[in-house]
């Protein structure tokens, strides 16, 4: 089934936003009364560094059609390097999803400053459009456990590489 045939499909999208930049940009988008699709729900975290790969997978498992992490611009992380570490986690999750046949674009990472209200709205719009084009998440909810297992393995490999 292609996206255009899914009638009335409203993607469920979860966004992990860091407190200092992305969440603040979200506030500014509001102050500027910019419009973006209501499909995005925000979870505030102190820093994107707090976001675990399992959080992203859990979101997909729980039925989210798309997930993204939004943090400070690279080099401007309030906590120095949290966003750089998370960029790698997001990439790892994308890789794991691809391996089990889920479009890796369902999980994304964005960077913006707290003054970029318009960019915040743009990201929400872009992401919603992209997920709408992909269609509903193809994975039956329970099956993601397999993905998690693979992910755990990757994580172990990653850890070895990191050392």
């Amino acid at each position, binding site marked *: 089934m292609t996206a255009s045939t899914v009638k009335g499909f409203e993607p469920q999208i979860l966004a992990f936003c860091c407190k200092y930049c992305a969440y603040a940009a979200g*506030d500014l988008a509001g102050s500027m009364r910019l419009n973006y699709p*209501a499909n995005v729900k925000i979870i505030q975290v102190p820093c994107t560094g707090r976001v*675990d790969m399992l959080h992203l997978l859990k979101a997909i498992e729980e039925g989210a059609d798309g997930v993204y992490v939004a943090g400070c611009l690279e080099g401007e992380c309030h906590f120095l390097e*949290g966003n750089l570490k998370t960029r790698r986690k997001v990439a790892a999750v994308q890789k794991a999803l691809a391996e089990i046949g889920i479009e890796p674009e369902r999980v994304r990472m964005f960077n913006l400053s707290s*003054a970029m209200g318009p960019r915040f709205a743009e990201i929400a719009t872009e992401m919603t459009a992209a997920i709408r084009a992909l269609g509903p998440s193809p994975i039956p909810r329970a099956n993601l456990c397999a993905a998690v297992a693979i992910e755990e393995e990757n994580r172990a490999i990653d850890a070895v590489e990191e050392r």
Partner: protein
Amino acid sequence: MSQPIGAVLVAGGGIAGIQAALDLANSGYKVFLVEQQAAIGGVMAMLDKTFPTNDCAMCIMSPKLVEVGRHANIDILTLTDIESIDGVKGDFKVNLRRRPRYVDLEKCIACGLCAAKCPKKVDDRFNQGLIQRKAAYVLYPQAVPLKYALDAEQCIFLRKGKCGVCAKVCPAGAIRLHEREIRQTLRVGAVILSPGYRAYNPAGLDYFSYGAHPDVMTSLEFERILSASGPYGGHLMRPSDRRAPKRIAWLQCVGSRDQNHCGNFYCSAVCCMYAIKQAVIAKEHSEHPLECTIFYMDMRTHGKGFEDCFNEARDKHGVRFMRHRVQAVRPEKESGRLALRHLGESGKVQTEHFDIVILSVGLETSPELRQWGQGLGVELSPGGFARIDDFNPTATSRDGIYVCGAFAGPKDIPQSVIEAGSAALCAGADLVAGRHTLTVRAATPSERDTRGEPPRVGVFICHCGINIGGVVDVPGVRDYAGTLPNVVYVADNMYSCSQDTQNTISAKIEEHRLNRIVVAACSPKTHEPLFQETLAAAGLNKYLLEFVNIRNQDSWVHMNEPERATAKAKDLVRMAVAKVLRLSPLSEELLTIAPAAMVVGGGVSGMAAALALSRQGYPAEIVERDSALGGQARHLHQTAKGDAIEARLGQLIAQVQADPRIRVHLNARLTKVEGFVGNFKSTVAVGATETVIDHGVAVIASGAQESLPSEYLFGRDERVITGLELDQRMKRGDRRLARLRTAVFIQCVGSREPERPYCSRVCCAHSIVAALHLKELNPEMAVFVLYREIRTYGEREALYRRAREKGVIFIRYERERKPRVSATPEALEIGVVDHALRRPLTIPADLLILASAIVPYRDEQLAQFFKVPMNADGFFVEAHVKLNPCAFATDGVFLCGLAHYPKPIDESIAQAQAAASAATVLLAQRTIRTSGTTARVDLRVCSGCGVCVSLCPYKAPSLKTQGPLAGKAEINPVLCKGCGLCVASCRSGALQLQGFDDGQIMGMIEAA
């Protein structure tokens, strides 16, 4: 004198005033922050990015704005002018004129309806008139106070008595159309002036076509165009036809270094850097290749990180730098472009076309501001700025009145922030006996023990007038919340932030024994602390709150889809309830602070810091590696203002030695440092004797030194000396100096080289002061200065001018074609290619003075001891380049003087006092509370792998070295900043971030 009044008035709410207000209010003084406009923020709030890091200006500033806005001991008085100041230090009476806002500050909820319905459009001065706003306005979206105001000069009702639409539509009944101006007198112990500057208005320079063509604009106008919240939403376009530009030119020194056209002889000190920043950002913003050209006289990139920025702009970003004089800018009708005629050093005139021409306007004090300053008894400098003394860099000529920011001379943000700290320190020191006499301390009621209680959740949904309620079905969300598990109380409120709703929430917590609270309203960024206080006041742990943003991130952005906005509000409330059920009370640890300081380094900075701390009542121990106090200043002759340094340094040393609170350790070295903020334990060794010092804070003032040149025959011919050696000869009154026939200075010796890329900042002014002194000793002497760029920033420009008037000859050389020095018994022969004549020139000289670089000591051990970073050049790295230039990211450790970056004496003393001010903020609190949102280790699960230890940028985790659990991780909550990086990276799941643990986040995901 009787007890001084423990309050300070800060005049001007720009970044300098804000910083001064925070330092004072956080160290026990009541502050009145007076601002002429409707909101604080000043010029920094208008900026898009800040150099040299290109940090977003609003991002770094808004936490400070919010802190000032919420501070219990800071009163912000907007739309207020200071008319006069009577009285003396310790007891001033400040007479104020408070213009009406026509909006009740208590009632306005900043919903913006008044502005939406206001029929009168006016030029938006915050946006430099590039767009319009309404007569009912808020200065900018993040303004503090975030309250609307009516523009008295524009409002139809206030001018003609008709209209009043705003009053009709205001849902909060906040409009006060008949408000009157009032007079008020405040009694304070000290005053700080931080009124800032105005940008030079180039309207008089008709040959630049400013005002005649919209694409010729000032740098401040362009800053608004670049800003994401500016008139074009951050899209780069030229005003005339809203098309994307292909070529942009910057014209430097417009309104600066130009006595003839504008009367401003001085250098504005910031324009070179902001032009570079704008050129780089413009290139980044542009969707197609953009050509950026900067026309300049000298590139003055003399600050920390500035030279790198300049080099990158040129080499990496391809910004074109042209040392050309621009003669005219003329709009061309046919092409719609701007024809720019410029003159190169060779004398050739060229014409090029640009889409936008930006005039890099200088900073100046307006005639009204000068008059105002003089009226208050403050003497002015030749440039029209407040006159200050090099050894007392923020004190004005009137005792008890201090100054900071651009009113004390043109300067950038870090320097303004440093001066703010210095002024706050001095003002506070005058009033020590009045500390904590006028401030309030929030009383904390005892906390109810909720352990063992089943969760009882209360959900409060806010209408925010019609801001939320006009879009979201608030009663529907309220009823829905009532169906969620463990929710025992729900309510909707018109304004949840209002005092009466706060009281209601308190009462309901009591009445229904609520132990978890969800508030769905505006943004937690601005309002979460308020509700946390309400919880605390009701005896509930403040961490048992979850805040849901259904305004900024729901009703305001989904205005056209009310049903979906309501559904989203329900989803968000459900997620919050899921999280709040899993929250537990968190504790904040209370630490006492040892009320003493250690200062590493006994130079001018170290001594100034110790004296400043002592004036605030805190003992200080100076640890100096040398056998005498004084540092590099011992070798210096004169300051740029012409003060003899030796005498002033002598006074400073005598003051330190006479101070009963200061203890000096000479020939000393640190051998051990243990502990952390509030409780350091350091071992100082003098010979074989070791002393252990307990101190709550440390100030690093370890200095730097003059490098020894390896070129120009230095060390091989005694007629070649360094700048400091010349100073010593001048100090000694060496008579041979007057007999010199020719003296030559070579600048940038060892600075601005590939292996040492930074500019040493002080050498240009230093050499010129010396050159002038030589000319004074013997007016017949031929004095040459061979330079790459003259960087006499600020009013030091007067020196450069005077030197040329006195006949000092300046010859520019390129780094690729350095002067060549050879020696004959009669004279040194210095070969250089003259930039104007483009001919090689040989100067026979009796003395060659090398302006050699200032190099840091690269004290790795000191860096290790205090866990503070060093940059590639070996200077210590401050917590934040712009807004925290005299503290480290490591709490309780501060930084000043040459160890931070090369700087002259006045700036060193200002930074030392600012470091002392920041230290005083900590010491005055006597205790500190750690945040509850910190990482915690489950020792049963921890495998001791050490990943957290290697990952944490703040060194909060460590592996236990003793006891049965040795090898397992532990987190020092004092050092933990609560980012959660370690938590997400823990291999064994042993770490949790309290308040954001996996259960809580997973709970939200499941409920989403």
